[in-house]
């Protein structure tokens, strides 16, 4: 075994000098949330770095809806899940069809549609929220889950179409020609050739849309208001309405709410990194 030289030790020390602050900076808010989640009420407000009596009692309170703020926890969890899955499915349907049409069928005006979609992608979502709120009212969709689902599809679709178009432009044209020669109809081409080949990008885009919808606060908070209609993030925001909010329960609920997207993100990281970050900024 070779002993490290002084120079190597020096480089390693310098790297650690960057790495340790990065680790602490990243973990502080998450660790703080976790400590609150496992602290009994008396410990939570004492400013300790580790609770004297760690407990999972808070989780039990949340799961059994034993607090005024938590009385609709499960239905809100259900709302979040259904809306996220619906947004994922609808975005996939709309975006795959559009990308196939623009990239493979070269439909007239496809390029213009792509540019309009990109334009939407760059309009900050908080700006679109103002007129969107009034429009949903006009359509009579306020306080209806469809308003949030359709709004999130509107926001997720442009980027989804763009990523899918980039990916499908890379598929060779000969593939379509060969399938057409064998007598495949356009729909068969779409179902049997295009969708299977695009699977990795489809997984990435579906995950992107689901996470976007699950994490959305602003639109959910504007478009839904009844306690049994709202999603989890809006319920978390509502905790702040009271002066004596049960922060340990708020942090516990937040922790539960943050777990599924983190798990999905890490499970699909392979696709997310390949499909999204590479496509996010083309230099």
């Amino acid at each position, binding site marked *: 075994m070779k002993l490290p030289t002084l120079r190597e030790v020096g480089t390693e020390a310098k790297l650690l000098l960057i790495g340790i602050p990065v680790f602490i900076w990243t973990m502080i808010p998450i660790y703080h949330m976790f400590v609150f989640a496992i602290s009994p009420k008396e410990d939570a407000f004492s400013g300790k770095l580790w609770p004297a009596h760690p407990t999972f009692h808070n989780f039990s309170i949340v799961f059994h809806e034993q607090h005024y703020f938590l009385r609709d926890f499960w239905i809100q969890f259900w709302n979040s899940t259904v809306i996220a899955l619906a947004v994922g499915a609808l975005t996939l349907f709309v975006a795959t069809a559009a990308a196939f049409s623009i990239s493979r069928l070269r439909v007239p005006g496809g390029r213009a549609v792509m540019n309009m979609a990109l*334009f939407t992608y760059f*309009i900050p979502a908080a*700006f679109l929220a*103002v007129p969107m709120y009034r429009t949903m009212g006009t359509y009579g969709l306020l306080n209806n889950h469809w308003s949030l689902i359709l709004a999130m599809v509107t926001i997720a679709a442009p980027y989804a179409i763009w990523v899918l178009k980039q990916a499908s432009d890379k598929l060779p044209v000969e593939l379509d020609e060969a399938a057409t020669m064998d007598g495949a109809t356009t729909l068969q081409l779409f179902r049997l050739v295009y969708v299977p080949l695009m699977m990795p990008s489809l997984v990435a885009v579906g995950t992107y849309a689901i996470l976007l919808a699950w994490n959305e606060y602003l639109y959910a908070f504007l478009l839904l208001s009844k306690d049994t209609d709202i999603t989890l993030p809006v319920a978390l925001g509502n905790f702040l309405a009271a002066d004596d909010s049960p922060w340990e329960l708020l942090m516990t609920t937040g922790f539960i709410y943050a777990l599924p997207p983190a798990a999905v993100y890490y499970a699909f990281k392979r696709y997310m990194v390949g499909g999204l970050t590479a496509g996010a900024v083309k230099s």
Partner: protein
Amino acid sequence: MAITLSASEAPSPPLSARLSPPQVWGIVLLAPYLLVFLAFVVYPVGYGLWLARQPASYVALYNDPIFARAAVNTLIFLVIGINIKMLIALFLSGFFAQQRPWIRWLSVIFILPWAVPSIPTILSVRFMLNPEWGVVNQLIFKFTGDDGPNWLNDPAVALAMAIGVHIWKSLPFWTLILLTGRLAISHDLYEASDVDGANWWQKFRYITWPSMQTLYITCTLLSMIWTLGDFNSVYLLTGGGPADLTHVLSTLGIRYLRLDQLSLAMASIVCAMPFVLPLVYFMMKRLSR
């Protein structure tokens, strides 16, 4: 009868006959997105612009001190906040490019802020900064015996904290993007410069920066556009307070909306357009190539 029919059809056959079957399918498959786009982008934006047509709303905006303050805050957020964030991301991308097992592990943890939803973590920071019960001031009291500052009650500090929360959330994403750019640079260049005895600054100045310049500037502009729409960092941390002094344009628009002043909300957004549209135009030229 048959003759007249065919004669009238001859110059312009029906649409379906002029288009090949794949093109008909193309239109059918594009239709769902077009419907979404027309119903939820074109109509709302058109309606919003129509609402913002009266000069009176702009006069009202001009006379509202909160608007001026929000515009300044937005500029600070974008010009100072984003540039600090991107410089850190550029620096950290160099750190994460080092091939070490522990750095690989750290990069998995480092992405957490991006992977978890922002609401619970922002609320977590909000409580940390609570003047009485927050862990920050309790630690200050423990070590110095003095009461810590009332963090979120001072507009300058509160805005800085909101920028900090924004950086915490989006730094991993941009570091990752810049890291991909860095890893694409040929390793031979660095080896050759080692032979020539270049120091780290020269390597950065003459190899890394020239190859990453375009990516870095694109990322900075894109981050600025997106940060304009960052509602959560400010709203959930400060709520625009104290005394509506920490609003940015995105929270101000929603504030007017909640006060049922829709034309003011739209007017404040229209005021941001001279800055947004050039950036959007630039990004679209970039991405639609």
